[in-house]
């Protein structure tokens, strides 16, 4: 479903230093696969996700999603993004819109759905993520965990083919991580194609089909959660696991 070949991405820091975020990065993701990406900070995990929907422009390489090469000039990036749901670390809900408006807005102005249909989809999703009673609240009136669940509902409302989670639980208070992970697990079990950058090893063990360990903009090691946690091969992986587990 996603084929990424030889991606290079370099950032320039304000003091003109170059940081290599992705170095000859290649990966293939199958339909329905749940892939967890882990790695130390600055290893390029988030950059990889952000390059997939072109929030970051790559320097070179190729990204093919559903048979379409999305880095070409003629590719309609807005159409591509409709199929790629994204959940951010800091939720990024629209603070001037109510919960239900957050979940319906893009349906109305991007998917051009009828109001009734958009509301129906939004209410079903809010029900699913467990905050149906908060639909007319503003984001600032919700807890972090609730906000993140709204953000997931907002992304799902576009009915994307792929969902990307960029450290979706990292900014949450510990007692709220569980409720968000539950929603992510449910999605994974329903067969959603998922890419999740996370530090939640429990999530990786429980639902992932594959774990990718990144460092220095490259894949160091990948495999099933079973392989990854029990028999890691590379020293770098072992070191990382020993530091976080």
């Amino acid at each position: 479903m996603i084929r990424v070949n030889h991606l290079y991405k370099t950032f320039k820091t304000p003091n003109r230093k170059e940081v290599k975020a992705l170095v000859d990065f290649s990966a293939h993701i199958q339909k329905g696969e749940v892939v967890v990406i882990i790695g130390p900070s600055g290893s390029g995990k988030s950059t990889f996700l952000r390059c997939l929907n072109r929030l970051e422009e790559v320097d070179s390489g190729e990204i093919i999603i559903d048979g379409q090469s999305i880095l070409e000039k003629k590719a309609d990036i807005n159409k591509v993004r409709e199929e790629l749901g994204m959940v951010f670390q800091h939720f990024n809900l629209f603070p001037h819109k109510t919960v239900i408006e957050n979940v319906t807005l893009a349906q109305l102005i991007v998917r051009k759905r009828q109001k009734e249909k958009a509301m129906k989809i939004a209410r079903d999703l809010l029900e699913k993520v467990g905050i149906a009673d908060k639909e007319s609240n503003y984001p600032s009136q919700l807890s972090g965990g609730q906000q993140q669940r709204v953000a997931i509902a907002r992304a799902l409302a576009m009915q994307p083919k792929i969902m990307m989670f960029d450290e979706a639980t990292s900014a949450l208070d510990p007692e709220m991580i569980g409720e968000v992970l539950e929603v992510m697990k449910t999605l994974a079990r329903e067969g959603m194609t998922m890419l999740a950058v996370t530090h939640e090893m429990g999530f990786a063990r429980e639902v992932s089909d594959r774990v990718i360990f990144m460092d220095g903009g490259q894949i160091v090691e990948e495999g099933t959660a079973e392989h990854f946690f029990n028999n890691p091969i590379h020293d770098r992986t072992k070191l990382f696991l020993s530091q976080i587990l």
Partner: protein
Amino acid sequence: MVFGKRSIITLAVLAVIIGWVYYFLTARGITYIWHWEQIPQLLFYHGTRTAAETTPSLHLGVLMIGFILTLKISAVAIVFAIILGTIVGIARLSSEPITRAISITFVELIRNTPLLVQIYIIYFFVGSMLRLSAFAAGTAALAIFEGAYVGEIVRAGIQSIHKGQMEAARSLGMSYGKAMRHIVLPQAFKRIIPPLAGQFISLVKDSSLVSVIALADLMFQGQQAVARTYSAFEIYFTVAALYLVMTSVLSMATQYIERRLAVSD
């Protein structure tokens, strides 16, 4: 509360100043004959305007006629200043270097030359080429001048919105324009209400400069009345008070809007 605390204080200060002028003149032994009695008829009068009118009725005096024109000029200029300022502010943040350069040049050119000069240029040069009325030329000059300032305010407002908002909107498939219109600008405008209000208060006051192109606004009518009656103090105090009414209402209106928009905070 009909009138804000601030406007009451301002009016009190104005009264104190008038009192001080009285005291100053008497203390210096200057005899100034006050003619406050002339003021009411400059606001409203009961009578006939033309020979054709047989029965006398209540009419607006010259100062009120000027007041209304100043209101019109200011209102139209504010609307166009917002439109122009939004375009300038967005252009300033464009990824196109040429668009950015045009926006920067416009802002610098307009901000760094006097409004009075711009009014003359637009009225005598642009105005005569395009056959603009004094009203159109005066209002256009004001809108352009204030639009440059509004542009900088809008730019600051857009930049103050966390980039995660734009990213979230774009990642849902919204185009740049849709994301701006539905997500970034509404939040930015809410945040820039206080500086915008200040700018529009400036605009109302700056509008007095259009009197130089014979637009019969409040300032112009005041000057004319002074020339007829020689009651400079009384009339200019009245003119000042009338400007104060307009700017106070504007202040109060923005406070009201701010409170109403605060619901999502």
